[in-house]
């Protein structure tokens, strides 16, 4: 089942990458770093990408780095995304803390019973 799922996943990624590549190929700018996907990430962060845009972003990013742009620019995008993720998730919202307390209690009681 695991192998089947992995095969399915690889096939899906390849299909999306090829179809996306074909549909956008004619509209690609001459400079790879000016790709709309890279500009979108620079403006709105990595999470703004749709799943089908991810292979395109990886490919255009690779092309962009090959053209001489340093890795530092991509690291900054990554850092900024981590910072945004931290800002969004550094505290519990609504009922999620209740769930966390319940889980902690259940796991704590389980190990307490196991060890005593």
């Amino acid at each position, binding site marked *: 089942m695991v192998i089947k799922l992995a095969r399915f996943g690889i096939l899906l990624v390849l299909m999306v990458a090829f179809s996306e590549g074909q549909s956008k190929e004619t509209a690609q700018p001459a400079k790879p770093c000016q790709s709309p996907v890279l500009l979108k990430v620079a403006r709105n962060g*990595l*999470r703004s990408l749709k799943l089908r845009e991810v292979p395109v972003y990886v490919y255009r990013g690779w092309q962009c780095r090959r053209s001489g742009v340093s890795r530092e620019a991509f690291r900054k995008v990554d850092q900024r995304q*981590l910072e945004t993720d931290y800002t969004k998730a550094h505290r*519990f*919202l609504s009922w999620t803390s209740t769930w*966390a307390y319940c*889980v902690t209690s259940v796991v704590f009681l*389980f190990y307490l019973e196991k060890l005593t």
Partner: protein
Amino acid sequence: MKPSLLLSFLFLTGLSALGAQPRLLAGLTGGYYEPTLTGFDTNAEIPTPKFMAKNVLYGLSLEGQVFYNTRITYQGLNSRHSGKTVSGANFSRTLTYRLLSLQTFYWPWRRLELNFSLGAVIGRGVINLNTKNASTDWDALLSSYGNSSIPLSSSDNMTTWWLGYASSIGLRYYLRSWLGLDLKAGFMHNGYRSSAWKFQGKTVTGPSLSLKRLPLFSLQVIFGW
């Protein structure tokens, strides 16, 4: 439809319904647990399971963020044991634990996440034997053309399934915004019954296994967007 396909379909449909653009994560998991597999350990007919076949779990996981601090996770963990029986037949045993959980999380520090999961376990056990036997009917037909006897290969499964629940607390460190390592400690409880195995459509008694209240530790490599 196969249960695994149905579960994947329900998981993806649920995600689509709950969020227009949920954050998706996929992971590779290695786990450790200590079940008591009496029916396999003390059975003279089959090879004795070693550490990797008995205590190690491996599998894939899928996670989708559906609320600010909430994910729905699906994790498939497998334990596989194979070898040859005393009579020389190929034997394999697979125990699969499918964990469907609700997970909440928060980041106490930058790059570091604490997550809390609780959910259901759908377990499945499969015992497969691949034997070679002579068939008198085939032998008669083959010999009528002047051939000698050729052993036939036949394979069949004994299967069972059960329900349970699992809970864990995880510590996840993000190396990149799209790559993380997740260390989890928790437990799972399985409602396994040895009397609920099926073979050729008939209910049979299977191996005696103790899968209740098992501590479970796992390490995941997470990729996600």
